[in-house]
């Protein structure tokens, strides 16, 4: 945990919203739910690459703004009739600060 990287504060992200972390290999969307759960997933919809960080957040899921695919934020799995998977990243929150493991930068995109 000691070498995890701080990426921002919980309060920097609106409730039921998301913001991005830009890395050399792509964007990671950091979500905050109505109940202050924090999740990190790849900011690319498995369907047509839509920016998931721009979607409407409900419960622990997000609806893609392009074609309404819904993803579970914890598992990255598409919900409902659609089949697909987006990459998820481990996050930790300590004292309102959000941390990610440093290898996220290498993994953000294939």
């Amino acid at each position, binding site marked *: 945990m000691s070498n995890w*990287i701080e*990426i*921002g504060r919980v309060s*920097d*992200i*609106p*409730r*039921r*919203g998301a*913001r*991005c*972390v*830009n*890395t*050399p290999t792509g*964007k990671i969307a*950091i979500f905050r*739910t*109505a*109940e*202050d*759960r924090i999740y990190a997933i790849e900011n690319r919809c498995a369907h*047509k*690459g*839509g*920016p998931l960080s*721009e*979607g*409407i*957040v*409900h*419960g*622990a899921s997000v*609806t893609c*703004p*392009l074609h*309404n695919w*819904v993803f*579970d*934020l*914890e*598992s990255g*799995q598409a919900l409902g009739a659609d089949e697909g998977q987006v990459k998820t990243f481990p996050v930790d929150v*300590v*004292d309102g600060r959000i941390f990610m493991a*440093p*290898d996220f*930068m*290498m993994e953000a995109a294939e």
Partner: protein
Amino acid sequence: MKQKLVVIGAGMASGRLLEHLFEDDPDAFDVTLFGAEPRGNYNRIMLSPVLAGEKTYEEIVTHDAAWYAGNGVHTRFGETITAIDRKSKVVLSRGGETPYDKLIIATGSAPFIIPIAGKELPGVMAFRDLDDVEAMVAAAGKPRAKAVVIGGGLLGLEAAAALRLRGMEVVVLHLMGHLMERQLDPAAGYLLQKELEGRGIKIHTKAQTKAILGHERVEAVALDDGTVYPADIVVMAVGIRPETRVATDAGLHVERGIVVSDQMVTSDPDILAVGECVEHERTVYGLVAPLYDMAKVAAKTLVKHDAAFRPVQTATQLKVTGVSLYSAGDFAEAEGREEIVLRDASSGVYKRLVLKDDKIVGAVLYGETGDGPWFFDMLRRGTDTRELRDTLIFGQAYQGGAQLDPMAAVAALPDEAEICGCNGVCKSKITSTITSKGLTTLDGVRAHTKASASCGTCTGLVEKLMVLTLGDSYNPAAIQPMCGCTDLGHDEVRRLIVAKELKSIPAVMQELEWKTSCGCAKCRPALNYYLVADWPGEYEDDGQSRFINERVHANIQKDGTYSVVPRMWGGMTNPRELRAIADVADKFHIPAVKVTGGQRIDLLGVKKEDLPGVWADLNAAGMVSGAAYAKGLRTVKTCVGSDWCRFGTQDSTGLGVRIEKFMWGAWTPAKVKMAVSGCPRNCAEATCKDVGVICVDSGYEIHFAGAAGLDIKGTEVLCHAKTEDEALEIIAALVQLYREQGRYLERIYKWAKRVGTDSIKANVVDDLEKRRHYFERFTYSQKFAQVDPWEERVNGKDAHEFEALAEFGMPVAAE
């Protein structure tokens, strides 16, 4: 020779520790107790009832001087420890040095005072000890005294309710969007707010306190949004921080609290710490149950018995008389978790259980908390709830016996059971009327019995009675529910929002018994629109419930870039605007510029982070958002009309500009496109628009309900207007009627087909009074709608939307 035990702090944790110690081995230690307060130990969590006048100080004392004396404890009340000398193993106070073999630090916590101007004025206080309570009681003695409580958590609300009970005028300022956000979800927070407001407490959420004002003593509190609340006292209840000074000075390992092992031993093996000053596995505790556990473990450690502190789940209850609220465990949503929600709007009940692998992991109960301990017990034991699943939420009383099927439950109701509370209709009245009148429809039952004809919340019950009475011959009207979160259709929801004066999304979800805790991407934007349309000036728009285009005021494109379309009133522009558009395209390397079908210019491929810069330059040239992304007024296309055209009969451009200037900014159920043509040759293509005007010699022919998208449909003629003023009034009234009746995402032609052209004409053409009425409602609503969203964002609104949370360059070395 007995070992010497010194205890710093005479609070609840140390009191409990001594009890356990004397039970385990009464002769092990010679105990000296230091306490900063000049009195013994009392039950701090019962201060609220003392403040409310429901209990006296004497009733909440747990360990008085006699108890300590009886157990041979040397008490040094009112004496503060200034330092610990670990080398010589003594503590220092004004009474000199006191030696110890073992030392307990139980200094508890100090209230957090937010660092703002005026915080040291007399009249500003915390809510932590009996002195604070006495100061508050004294202030409440003055007639019409005013209190401002900063902090809408457990402690702040208990203080607020108690002060209100003592007759003060009370305002609660809370930084977050709903009360007690750490213990409650938004739905329960809403119910609590409603209850407290009903008692005359003003609640101001999202309140950022700027300063406390006053000369000699506190006079008022000012917020960032400009609000000023007069105050005789200000109670700060925003949180606590562990009181660790004496441990830090002594060089012990301290993070947020004094770091302890599972045995409650600090980094010095002869010093233990318990209570709110402690940090265990990176957690600090503020509720009493874990503090008592710590006390027990520390006592065992002192007498060299094995014991280890393990964090346990705790439940929270608010101690405000008449408010039933219970929360336990973790109630956030996450993968693999399911929720069971029960809402009963008429009795103000909200219950939510969160399950994982068929086990309860969290519970929030409001209004009816009798089953809290039962749920909490299952939560702690990890009981498998599969067998109980269907009726779990109904509580313990429903368990055992036959499985409860909702139909059977209705069938089992006695004949005199009240079904419709609004109209006082009982079960037998409904069933007998169905039979005697031969009723087969819900409307028929409503007409003959009035059941479910008012607020409508008992509709489900009435329908079940119809099924029971009529059997399969009754097919409940196939109302398409808004989404999976509710059984109600759009029309019912809209009707109930107005009838029950619901003015927030949590209010709608609670009162209309939503089945999910925070809705979905289908219902949230719809509810947000309905509330915007129905409560202008009162409802605060919820950006997070809007589709991305309406949240960032630009159109998302397939590659995640945006397009930007400035308004060109009636399609008119000029060299200055065109130059500004060209300059913006150059400056921000905008890859595509296109003329739209609505007579304006589209800048395509703008990067999200560039949007505020693009808007600032367009604003500087006098242009505002064209709302090309909005479920709202889009464009008013025009032809050049009598200004230039040899066939023009009226000033169609002028009327188009006038309509657009009057109506821009209005939100509607779906997009609204308009056009004004100067003669029946119709160059502006007004006869396939949502609303169109064809100018003729005698005035203006008003058309509506056209379509030229998925469906192609020519308009219908609404009426003829003699003057521009009359045309404008009719068009605004028509759009307002649509705003009030349309279902979210339903275009005007679909709405018109559903409600019938005749009913629309009756409201905005035939009945002048009604027309005027709709026109005025539209005009009123525009007062709040005509704000350029681009300018707001150029000035910093929602800045988080346009900036990355963090940027990282290439990593230097991989691990």
